[in-house]
């Protein structure tokens, strides 16, 4: 094969997920009525933040060669904890903004507990990740149900939804742009209001950029890849593998908990089932993004692309009027293709990078 053609094919192979995403966006934009709009694109982005948070943490875990099955219910339990704290503080007379802030922090830091337990079981007691996190899957599910009594937690502070459903900029044709706050307007004008850059997407982007940087540019990231590539080599190089794995599983759970906090901010409710449907999507997103379940490869950019593929597919198929059942079908096929590409064309992925 000519080297130019070969290089081209390698480039296509390495970026197939991104190309696929672009093709899909183009197709839906042309053929899906109403797909091509700022509003719809922003909706896709906001809708994918949950999967994105679960998948980001999962990426770290999968690179080390592990798996975290508990993220969906850890997220659910975090929504319940955040919502309960907000509700009870607010009802006992604490100010609205403080109740919301403390609720968010409680939800976020609740992720430390399942993460530490997963990490301890896996790193110190050598329980296989699949089993340890399957146990936590059940425990977190149960904890969420027990804390909430099996019902969604409602009656939260009234202005809660403003952050989760807010935008950085608003545009109203007659009044121009405004920053963070909706302009004053008549009821009839509301339909003309355009929100630009949704807040949950901004929060997700900031966190992803920080952790993407950690994974790609720091010693911590390098050790994460080394553990996934050859744990004996990592040990022999003096890397404290069990401490590192503890941190990895805490990162995973805290990402899940952050996903939970964002959920509460958007839907103004807490539910132990909030992340249930997204758990397998998150693993799928990581795999579509180029990570191998054997460990050692993957990155957050790929995971973001993988997540967006799933979210775009869901929205696009709905807009095209395809029965939602076919979504599962389509996502399943894409996962299989992703794994086959990883299996049969490893050189596409392993070609030298810096």
């Amino acid at each position, binding site marked *: 094969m000519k080297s130019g053609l070969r290089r081209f094919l390698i480039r296509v192979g390495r970026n197939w997920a991104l190309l696929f995403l672009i093709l899909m966006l183009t197709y839906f934009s042309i053929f899906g009525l109403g797909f091509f709009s700022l509003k719809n694109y922003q909706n896709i982005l906001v809708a994918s933040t949950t999967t994105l948070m679960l998948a980001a943490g999962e990426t770290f875990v999968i690179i080390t060669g592990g798996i975290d099955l508990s993220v969906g219910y850890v997220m659910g339990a975090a929504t319940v904890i955040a919502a309960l704290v907000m509700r009870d503080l607010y009802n006992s007379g604490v100010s609205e903004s403080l109740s919301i802030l403390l609720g968010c922090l409680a939800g976020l830091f609740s992720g430390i507990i399942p993460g530490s337990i997963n990490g301890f079981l896996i790193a110190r007691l050598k329980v296989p990740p699949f089993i340890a996190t399957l146990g936590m899957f059940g425990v977190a599910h149960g904890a969420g149900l027990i804390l909430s009594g099996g019902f969604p937690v409602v009656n939260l502070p009234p202005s809660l939804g403003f952050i989760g459903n807010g935008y950085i900029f608003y545009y109203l044709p007659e009044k121009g742009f405004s920053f963070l706050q909706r302009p004053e307007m008549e009821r009839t004008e509301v339909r003309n209001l355009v929100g630009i850059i949704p807040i949950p997407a901004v929060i997700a982007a900031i966190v992803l950029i920080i952790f993407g940087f950690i994974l790609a540019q720091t*010693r911590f990231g390098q050790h994460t*890849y080394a553990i996934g*590539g050859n744990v004996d080599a*990592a040990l*022999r190089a*003096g890397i404290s593998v069990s401490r590192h794995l503890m941190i990895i599983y805490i990162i995973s759970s805290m990402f899940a908990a952050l996903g939970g906090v964002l959920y509460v901010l958007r839907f103004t409710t807490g539910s132990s089932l909030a992340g249930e449907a997204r758990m397998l999507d998150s693993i799928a997103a990581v795999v579509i993004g180029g990570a191998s379940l054997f460990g*050692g490869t993957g990155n957050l950019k790929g995971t973001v692309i993988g997540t967006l593929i799933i979210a775009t597919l869901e929205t696009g198929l709905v807009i095209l009027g395809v029965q939602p059942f076919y979504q599962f079908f389509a996502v399943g096929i894409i996962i299989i293709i992703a794994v086959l590409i990883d299996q049969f064309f490893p050189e596409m992925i*392993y070609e*030298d990078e*810096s």
Partner: protein
Amino acid sequence: MESPTPILEVINLTKRFGGLVAVDRVNMQVFPGEVVGLLGDNGAGKSTLVKMISGVYQPDEGQILFQGKELKLSNPMEALKLGIETIYQDLALAENLNVYANIFLGREKVKKVLGFINVLDRNYMLEESRRVLKQLDIEIPSLRNKIQKLSGGQRQAVAISRSIYWNAKFLIMDEPTAALGVAEQQKVLALVRTLKAQGVPVIIISHQLHDVFSVADRLVVMRRGRKVGERLTRETTPDEIVGLIVGSIRE
């Protein structure tokens, strides 16, 4: 050619596994810049002997002196810290990382960005790796290549450069040529000669008599846990060594 003080000396070293005496009162010395070939049939105790030197096993009796001081190693990391490096057959490299990342694995060089963020200093690691490979006359097409893409001999070379870069004072090579093709074997042997020329003492275990004869200064033969012979390479023949290995020649 032997200078008076050995860099490594083992005295009456003994290791038992249950009723089996794997290594039985072995005495041996290695001098600076010397390559010692350790020979013997399977189960003769060669690997057990070097594993005591590298801290994997703890001796039941006897002493190990390294640079004149007695060694009490409880794990391999302690040996590594003292500069006693073992190059294993199943090389301890992360195949998903590139050459320089492996050379610096666990000891990555970082630089500060914005005054407080530690970021991998890839250029520094690349240049330093290039320097050590050059010093050892090793050619690897690109140091950005993942280990996965390298041949067995190149991997061996990376593992050796890694230990040299981190100031290995003593190298133990356990069957370094076993899994390699002929041309690759020659490269690894050339590398051993380079190490010797630079004054790094090496113990090399190998079944390939030809290899050992081509690099070692001195040969130590073990049989059933005991040292049964020691010869200067230039004063012996493969036939004599085989005789010692199988027990047809006795001292």
